[in-house]
Structures are given as C-alpha cells and as structure tokens.
C-alpha cells in the first residue's frame, strides 16, 4: 500500500480508464439496431461482447468509437459523461479499436503504417529518428513485427499483431477488438490473446472483444455481455457460466451443438485425382508446388493451412479461375480442364471463398445468380430463348428450401448479407439432382452459428449421398468436425496427411506453422 501511495501519479497514468455505456439506442431509419443497451468495462478486465450476426455488437462499438452518433444514451469515461464524435475523440480518451478487416496499407512498410497511424506526426518525417523510436517501442511491446517489411508480405497472424501493436503504439488503454482471431490459426490466436491477457492482468489494458468463439471466451475472458437482436440479453462472469449458458443467452433457447452424423459409403470410387499440380500466384511466383491428391466418393478431404500457403491458388485451378503451369486434374477417370461442358458432364460444383466475388455476378438478381448453372438448359431455356418464368420458379423454390433471406428473387444479390449470399450460392450448387464432386473453400467464413451449422449439415448430407467433397478451410475446428481425411498445405506442398481418427492436433498445428 505504501508503495502505491508514494507514487500515485505514475499509477494513475498506467491505469486504463473505466468505460460505461448507459441505455444506448441507435436507429437507422425505422430499423432499431441497438435498443437500450448498457455495458460496463471495468479497468483492467477482459470483457467479451457476444451475440449472433446482426445482434448489434458492431453498432454498439461503433457508437463508442464515434463512427455513429447514438440516437440516445451516453458514454461515461471515469464516471464523466463524454461526447465521442469521431475515432479521433475516442483516441483522446485512450480508446482504440482493432477492426475485423485489416486497416493497414498493404503497399507500405510496418514502420510507415505505424507513423501514419499517429494523429500528431510532423509534416516532414525524420526516418532515422522515427526508426530509433519505433525500435525502442518494439523492444518493450508484447510481440514483435519486423519494421521494414511491406504489409502485403506479412502473414495474417503478423498483420493482426500489427493492428494491435498500432493501438499500443498510440498509447490506447482500452482496446476494442472486433473478432480479432477470425483469420488466425488456433495457435496464433492463443499466442496473441495470451499476450494481451498478460497486459490486462498486469493492469495496463482493458479489453472489449467481440467474439464468436467460446473456446477463446472461456480461456481468456473475465466478463461477458450478451446482445440478442439489438437488445441486452445477459451479463455475467465467465467463471460462473457454462458454454451452454452463454449460447442460451445468445440464441434465446438452449441448443446443444448437434454432432454430425456420418454414414459409411459403400464402394468408394476415386472421383477427383490431382496429379502434380503447379500454379503461380498473381505476381508470377510459384504458389502451388506440385501437389497430388485423390478424393473418393462419399468422402470429405479437408485441407488445412494458414492463408497464403497456396490453397487459394489450388482452389482457383480446380474451379477454372487459374491456369495451372503443369500437372493434371482427372475427374471420374477423364482429364478435366474446368470448362462449362466438363463441369456439367462430371457434375462438379464449387463453393468458393468470398462467394460474392468468386461465384456471383453482384449486380444480377438473386434469381439470375441462382440460374447461372442451369439457365442454358431445359427447362430454363428453349433454344436461344430464356424461360424467365422457369428461372423465377426455381429461384423461389430454392429461396424457401435454403431459407435465403431476400426481399424478392429480383433483388440484386449484392444487396444481401454475407450469410445469405453464401446460402444462395450453396442453394445453386447443391440443388442439382446428381452431384459427383463438391469443392468448398472457407464456406463458413464470417457467418453466425445458425448459418454455420446449416452449411455443415448440407455438406455432410451431400457426403452421405456419395458426393466427393474437397474442403479447404482456415478453421481447424471445422475441418476436424467434417473431414474424413485431413491434409495440411504449407508453402504450396502437402506436409501432413492422416485419417481423421488418427489426426494429431498438435502435429497439424506444427505442420501448418511450417515446422
């Protein structure tokens, strides 16, 4: 006690402020995104904000950060009401946010990005002095990132670390993290969150983290506040709550995660054979360095890997979006070059990542996008004429069957939310009578629990009917749940392979990291 009172000023400076949100409401026109929500972030605690997509989590933190003006309600910092009109104001009170998407400039170096992020930097930059100061800062930071490397060359984990370092560099005392681990491997996520946890335990930081992952919440978080449909749905200490309790608060009903039921497929045949495929990245550097793989009917083969290790290029080659520099793809015994005719003949379907970019025409309607596979065949066309009525009817059926939330089949698909675009593409790809091969890449990226479960069920159902599934994902939990066989890609080569029964979590993590 005496030591604390003898140096009160430094202790005061080190301590993060207390943040309270009182009765905050935010309306967008007639839509109430946030309805009378309160939240209390005590100094030196790790607080999680839970909720499904559209529950108002992002709206709440954007109101705190000054991106949005709340319709009513107030923010208290150290018991004083403060108006935060812009992120710059938030910075003044020591609040900094790490966004879900990286906000560093890809073509600039780490040092340039850090200097740029400062609000008070001089007009002319003395690089020698800045480098010295940055190096001093890096030496004391919880994790290190090389200063003179362009962001584009950093791995996802390093980028996420940089985003957090940026806030520490700006001397933020309250960190708001928006799903900070969505692009990290479990190992990287544990490392980053663990180091932040140490700073919190030391009393140097308060953290408010938006998360979907209960594993991380139970491992690192002190308190949770749960939102549901824009309203406050619960609060509590993690030590008093079970995962089922938290899930119940989020979804309003108790729901156990249902295990996937797999049936063994009789008489498996090789459907997809990849032989020594090589492919280049956009910049001409080799990304896929000779991979070979066979997927049998009624089997899900999972490919794990940290993004940027060639899996994107491999999927693009399989989907016909990229030309392989050498190697061969064989589907059902005959060579496959991903032409439209071959896709139709061999019944190959794909669920690529970022479906709006890779599998949709954004300005076309939902119905037109759902007909992209079939519009040139009967009954949707007659000679050169399209039968619009048939296209519309099919779309209506699929919208209902796959519960795609869209105002009408005539809405441009780019107006739909990410989860519904994903559902619409899934509907198109899985609606065919016969499917031989399904190629899926990160099919659940950024979706909420309900949507993830739905998509997982659909993929397993397809597998049980004898479809060969190649599943590329950055989410190891997803791969372990769905796959029959798992492979790890690192540096453009497969470095690990095992059946799911014999899969070793630690070995997979090590081979993903390239060891």
């Amino acid at each position, binding site marked *: 006690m005496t030591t604390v009172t003898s140096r009160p000023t430094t202790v005061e400076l080190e301590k993060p402020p207390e943040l309270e949100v009182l009765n905050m409401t935010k309306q967008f026109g007639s839509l109430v995104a946030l309805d009378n929500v309160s939240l209390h972030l005590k100094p030196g605690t790790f607080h999680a904000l839970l909720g499904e997509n559209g529950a108002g989590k992002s709206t709440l933190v954007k109101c705190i950060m000054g991106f949005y003006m709340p319709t009513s309600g107030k923010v208290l910092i150290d018991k004083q009401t403060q108006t935060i009109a*812009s*992120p*710059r104001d938030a910075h003044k009170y020591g609040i900094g946010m790490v*966004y879900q*998407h*990286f*906000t*560093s*400039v*890809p*073509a*600039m170096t780490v040092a*340039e990005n850090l*200097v*740029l*992020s400062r*609000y008070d*930097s*001089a*007009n*002319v*930059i003395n*690089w020698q002095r800045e480098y010295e100061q940055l190096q001093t800062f890096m030496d004391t930071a919880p994790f290190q990132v090389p200063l003179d490397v362009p962001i584009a060359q950093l791995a996802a984990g390093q980028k996420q670390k940089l985003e957090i370092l940026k806030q520490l560099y700006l001397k933020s005392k309250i960190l708001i993290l928006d799903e900070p681990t969505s692009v990290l491997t479990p190992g990287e996520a544990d490392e980053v969150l663990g180091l932040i946890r140490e700073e919190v335990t030391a009393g140097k930081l308060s953290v408010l983290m938006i998360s979907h992952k209960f594993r991380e919440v139970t491992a690192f978080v002190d308190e949770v506040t749960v939102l549901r449909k824009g309203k406050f749905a619960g609060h509590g200490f993690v030590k008093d709550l079970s995962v089922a309790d938290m899930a119940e608060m989020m979804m309003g009903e108790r729901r156990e995660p249902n295990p996937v039921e797999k049936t063994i497929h009789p008489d498996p045949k090789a459907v997809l054979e990849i032989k020594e495929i090589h492919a*280049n990245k*956009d*910049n*001409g550097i080799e990304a896929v360095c000779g991979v070979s793989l066979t997927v049998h009917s009624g089997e899900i083969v999972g490919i794990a890997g940290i993004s940027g290790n060639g899996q994107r290029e491999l999927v693009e080659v399989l989907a016909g979006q990229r*030309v392989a520099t050498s190697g061969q793809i064989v589907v059902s015994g005959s060579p496959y070059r991903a032409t439209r005719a071959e896709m139709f003949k061999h019944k190959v379907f794909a669920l690529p990542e970022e479906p709006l970019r890779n599998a949709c025409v954004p300005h076309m309607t939902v119905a037109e996008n759902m007909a992209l596979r079939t519009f040139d065949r009967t009954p949707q066309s007659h000679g050169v004429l399209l039968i619009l009525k048939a296209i519309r009817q099919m779309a209506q059926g699929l919208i209902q069957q796959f519960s795609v939330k869209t105002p009408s089949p005539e809405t441009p698909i780019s107006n739909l939310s990410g989860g519904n675009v994903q559902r619409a593409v899934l509907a198109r790809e899985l609606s065919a009578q016969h499917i031989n091969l399904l190629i899926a890449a990160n099919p659940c990226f950024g979706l909420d629990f309900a949507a993830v479960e739905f998509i997982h069920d659909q993929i397993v159902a397809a597998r049980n009917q004898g479809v060969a599934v190649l599943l590329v994902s950055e989410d190891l939990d997803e791969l372990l749940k769905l796959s029959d066989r798992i492979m790890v890609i690192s540096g453009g080569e497969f470095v690990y392979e095992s059946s799911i029964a014999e899969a070793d979590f630690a070995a997979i993590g090590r081979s993903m990291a390239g060891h």
Partner: protein
Amino acid sequence: MAAEALGWWGVPLAIAAGTMRGGTPFLFVSLGECLTEKSGKINLGLEGTLLMGAMSAYAISYLTGSPWLGVLVAGIAGVFLGLIHGWLSQQPRVNDVAVGIAMIVFGSGLAFFLGKPFIQPSAPQLATINLAAAGAPPALQSALQISPLFLLGVAIAPFLHWFFKSTRWGLFIRAVGDSPDAARAMGLSIFNVRMLSVVAGSFLAGIGGASLSLYYPGVWTERISSGQGLMAVALVIFARWNPIQCLWASLLFGGAQALGPALQSVGIEQGYYLFNAAPYILTLIIMIITCSPKRTLTGVPGALGTDN
C-alpha cells in the same frame, strides 16, 4: 538542318537534344499523372490539360510579353480542368476513365476554340540556358540549349519521390490510393486527398503544355500535343508509379520522338513517317510487355480506378 554540318554525328546529338526537348512535356505530364494515380484516380484528361496549357501559355506570353507568366497561367488552366475532373470523377457511379475521355474532348475543344486567334502570331519564347562553349559549332550550340523547364522537371522528380516517402501528406496520398478503407479508418477525407492530388497533377500537366508552346516546338497549333498526354499515362505504368523512373521513361520517350527528325536531318527520307511513329510503337510495346493476365503489376496503387 543544324545537324547537317556534323554529318552522321548529328544523329546521336539530335537525339540527345530531342531527348531533353521532347522529354520535357512527357516528364511533366507523367509526374502529374503519377501523383494523381498514387491517390487512386486515373486522369486520362491530361491530354486535354496539356493542350489547354500549351494554348494558354502561348496566348498569355503573346499578350503580356512575359513567357513565365504564360507558364504560370498554363498551370492555373490545368488546376481549373483538374477541379472539374476531381469533382466529377468522385461522384457516385461515375467512372474515372469515362470522365477522363470526356475531359480530353472538353480540354482540347476549349483550347482550339480559345486558341484560334493565336495560331498566326509569334509569342516570346522562354529563355534557354546554353551549355556549349561560345566557340563551339553552331549545331552543337543549338543542340545544347536547355530549357529551365526541363531542369525544373528534373528537380521535381526526386522531390516527388522524397515527398511520397518522407512527408505526412505523401503517406496520406499513398494510403488513400492503396487502401481507402485504411485511410478512412485513420479519419482521412478520401475526397479531399484525391481532389488535391488530381488538381496538383493537372497543374504539372498544364506546365508540360507550356513547355510545348514556349520551348519546343515553340509554336501553338492544334496538332501540337499529338497524343503525348495519353502516352504519358502509359509511361507511368512503365515507370511503376515511381517518380524517378518517370524521369528516365520520359527521356526514353523524348528520345524516341526525336528519332524521325534526326534521321531526316541527315538525309534519310525513307520510312520517315515510320520513325515518327516510334513513340506510339514504343507505347504499344510497353503495354504488351507490362500487361500479362498471369501477373499483377508491382507498385500499382491498390485502389487505382476502383469505385470506392
């Protein structure tokens, strides 16, 4: 003609001189376009800006007798066209390339309309710096007359390089051009940064126009630019958005342009038009070499020409 007395030696000499003369407008326009594109906008309209600059520089120089005032007004004419482009091209659902083409037509049309009375009279030219000794052959003397505008351009290139690397504003422009989302998260106004970049780029292009009409060829005609503004856009790609490389690329293009006249001056008449087409052929070759469906360009600003 000047090269005649020196015989075949006149060819490299004429090309060297032409490099400095003909390279000057390329240099200014490409530096202007480089600045504009670094902020993520494309300004094809610099062809129109170049003509407008050439016309206004010539007219002001003729009317006031001061060629330097002409240079300044050429820059201001560029600013005027840049404001239109910067505002129009940032409206929702407006495409930079379409606006740029409209601005080529508008800028050149305006220049031809206002410039009609100035085709005949001869305006005072910018003074040049003579590098050759007084006793040197006259051909050498005329070849080594260097425009202060050329030197200015040569100085601007490294300045711009330093500006992008070591100033806050330079970093802002690169951030806006490479990742508007990141810039927005920093609280920057994308509109203002791009507006200022487009306007400053157009100012430089206007001065490039002044070098056409007040230095080389030193007249005002409607065919004076012959597409140099558009070639400068290709040149920026060739230079990988690097101001220093813009300088070398401009000199290369200027040299290519001087090839035809240099060969003509030593009596090679055959294929004259073909040699005059050298810069255009060079543009095509560069486009073919640099554009590949399998590779992305290094150095290209991430948000160049996109809608956000």
